[in-house]
């Protein structure tokens, strides 16, 4: 099969690899119809995720059709159309028992590595380093799904791939980020980052009753999407964000703040330079400008929810603000399994159309171009969907098939704003 293989920092190759096999009785194999590039993949692309090995197949947002099931698979059948959650969870351990699937105790075969790094091991993830299991990812034509009865959700044929694909990750991630804010009706929620995760957080905060959502980024097309989904927007290159937030909230600060930026935050000034130098000297693994701002801006006693991924150590975090102002910090890799059914129901009811964020659809062969474009936010790129079975582009049409100005590929479906 064809797969997108990581060979090092900014080195990806789409190449032929063996097809996946059933390795355990609860496995299934799916033929992938759509797979996306996630902001988390950019951290791998940039070489910031420890525990990657040259030759790893990456990608963790994917869906497709079941083509083979292991002897112990009961619910899934060959031919089912499914979306697959990115954490791998057994369904039977202490954490799965309380729907904390991304903390499953039984799915990381390299748990000891994660224990050395973080103290304890979370669940294994698809295509996300050997620290998190070393599982082959889903930017490929096929993928092997462990615990197939626990993860994948069947989706109705009436919905397009683009409408349901993001149930695998970014939609539940934005939703959980907002849910963790324990929003009271009328609350003000500020969201740093208007990538897919930030956008879904904006929309979810509204679905959960926020009175006011303030979205922060610097790319106009992303800010436009956020305001299309009902947020007030701040361009952090134009305004001083903490100051603006203070003014907007009568000096008190937002009730909850969401960091949907993660470890590769962008910033100018002294801290920006400081982080870049330390990160390149490997003295600091992650750059946290958005997190610092969120911690300063949040109101006393408020919640800072962190879906943005951090991998190691960060510097100059105003911890005193957390203690003295009684902030609550919430974070985690998303417990996707927990959200699949309720969020699919929201999509079916028309409360949200996730295809709204798609800007590019490319054949899998063009994954490397897709990564570059998404990382550099070129061509107004917000979300790239890869098609593993699409015809490779001919030499002449080797241009990303951008639908232009950020209209979703699927088209036609009305969005509720």
């Amino acid at each position: 099969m064809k797969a997108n293989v990581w060979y090092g920092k900014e080195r990806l190759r789409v190449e032929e690899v063996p097809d996946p096999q059933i390795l355990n009785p609860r496995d299934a194999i799916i033929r992938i119809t759509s797979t996306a590039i996630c902001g988390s993949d950019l951290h791998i692309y940039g070489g910031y995720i420890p525990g990657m090995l040259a030759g790893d197949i990456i990608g963790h947002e994917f869906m497709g059709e079941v083509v083979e099931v292991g002897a112990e698979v009961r619910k899934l059948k060959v031919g089912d159309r499914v979306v697959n959650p990115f954490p791998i969870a057994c369904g039977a351990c202490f954490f799965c028992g309380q729907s904390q699937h991304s903390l499953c105790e039984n799915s990381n075969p390299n748990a000891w590595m994660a224990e050395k790094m973080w103290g304890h091991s979370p669940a294994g993830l698809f295509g996300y380093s050997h620290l998190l299991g070393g599982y082959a990812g889903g930017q490929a034509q096929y993928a092997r799904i462990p615990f197939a009865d626990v993860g994948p959700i069947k989706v109705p044929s009436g919905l397009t791939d683009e409408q349901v694909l993001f149930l695998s990750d970014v939609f539940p991630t934005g939703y959980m980020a907002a849910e963790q804010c324990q929003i009271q009706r009328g609350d003000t929620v500020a969201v740093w980052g208007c990538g897919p995760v930030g956008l879904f957080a904006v929309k979810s905060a509204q679905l959960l009753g926020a009175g006011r959502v303030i979205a922060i980024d610097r790319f106009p097309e992303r800010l436009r999407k956020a305001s299309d989904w009902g947020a007030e927007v701040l361009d952090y290159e134009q305004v001083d964000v903490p100051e603006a937030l203070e003014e907007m909230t009568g000096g008190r600060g937002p009730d909850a703040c969401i960091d949907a930026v993660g470890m590769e935050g962008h910033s100018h000034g002294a801290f920006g330079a400081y982080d870049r130098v330390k990160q390149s000297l490997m003295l600091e693994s992650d750059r946290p400008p958005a997190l610092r701002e969120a911690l300063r801006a949040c109101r006393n006693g408020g919640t800072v929810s962190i879906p943005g991924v951090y991998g190691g150590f960060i510097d100059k975090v105003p911890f005193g603000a957390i203690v003295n102002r009684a902030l609550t910090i919430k974070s985690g890799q998303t417990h996707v399994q927990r959200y699949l059914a309720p969020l699919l129901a929201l999509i079916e009811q028309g409360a949200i159309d996730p295809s709204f964020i798609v800007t590019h659809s490319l054949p899998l062969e063009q994954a490397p171009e897709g990564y570059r474009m998404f990382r550099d936010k070129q061509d107004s790129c917000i979300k790239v969907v890869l098609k593993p079975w699409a015809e490779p582009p001919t030499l002449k049409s080797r241009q990303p098939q951008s639908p232009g100005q950020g209209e979703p590929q699927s088209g036609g479906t009305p969005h509720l704003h």
Partner: protein
Amino acid sequence: MATEFTQQGFDRSRQQRTGDSFESRPHIPTARRNRRNRQPPSLDALALAQGLGWFSIALGTAALIAPGSLSQLTGLDGGRRTVVRGVGIREIAAGAGILTQRNPAPWLWSRVIGDVMDLALLATGLRPGNSGRGRAAASLVTVAGVLTLDALAAAHLTRHAGHPLVSGVAAPTDLYFETSIATTRSPDECYQFWRNIENLPRFMDSVESVQARDEQHFHWIVKGPGGTTMEWDSEITEDRPGAALAWRTLEGAQVPNAGSVIFEADPRGRGTIVRLSMHYSPVGGQLTTGLAKLLHRDPQSQVREDLRRFKQLLETGEIATTRGQPTGRRSIMGRAARRWRLTNSN
């Protein structure tokens, strides 16, 4: 040496278990009592024992070389040279015993007895008319002080005799460790799964096969270094259904070892905490160097992985793996990582 210590040592640790930890007092979790009993000795006490050992040797040497001066110094008459030489021999024996034997406690007790004898001897120096009366009195006070230290160290190490550091079970190259894992399954399910010896090779990575000779005796074939295999027979020494199992190898085992596993009901009713203690003298000495630990190849880490697989099998019916999945071309680093089994992936 090895066989001597193991047979003796295991017997002792087994008595310990039978005598204290596995007796039936169901309201106190067995494991906890077992652990208290095997608590490590105070390192101060071990250091004190060492100091007393050296003191014995120094004093004994002085008594042998210069019995006259020592008699003078302690206020005894010059005529006691032979007695003092005898004391010297006794001291050197006790010191050597404390410093070289794995369990110093009996030798410390021998010092306590010696101290009492010395007190009696010195008391003769107190008789009126002895010119060295004052020095004899001072020596008496000193010996009484040493007696207190001897008795303290001896009593402490005797109390902690269950711990391999004291009991003589552990040779310097021996391994003893405890590791545990929490599972959602009940103590009974855990026990049943472990007691069915066909399951053992499924989660014990180094075990190739286990065959039952009878209910209590088993024959093990285990992977050794460099593709070799090792074999031994073991017997079950304790079997408490739903609660605990203990075993040890029989005489003549290539790698003498003993272990116990305790299935302790989780206090919050959340299943079981499985506690495994293992003790053995590994082939090729102790591998617990920093590097082996870092690479997760030290014996304790390996046994921890065994427990993890045990949990996975019980809870999910399979062991999470990526071995055999597709990958791109691996670099030298990637192949080394696989060879060293740093990652489960190929």
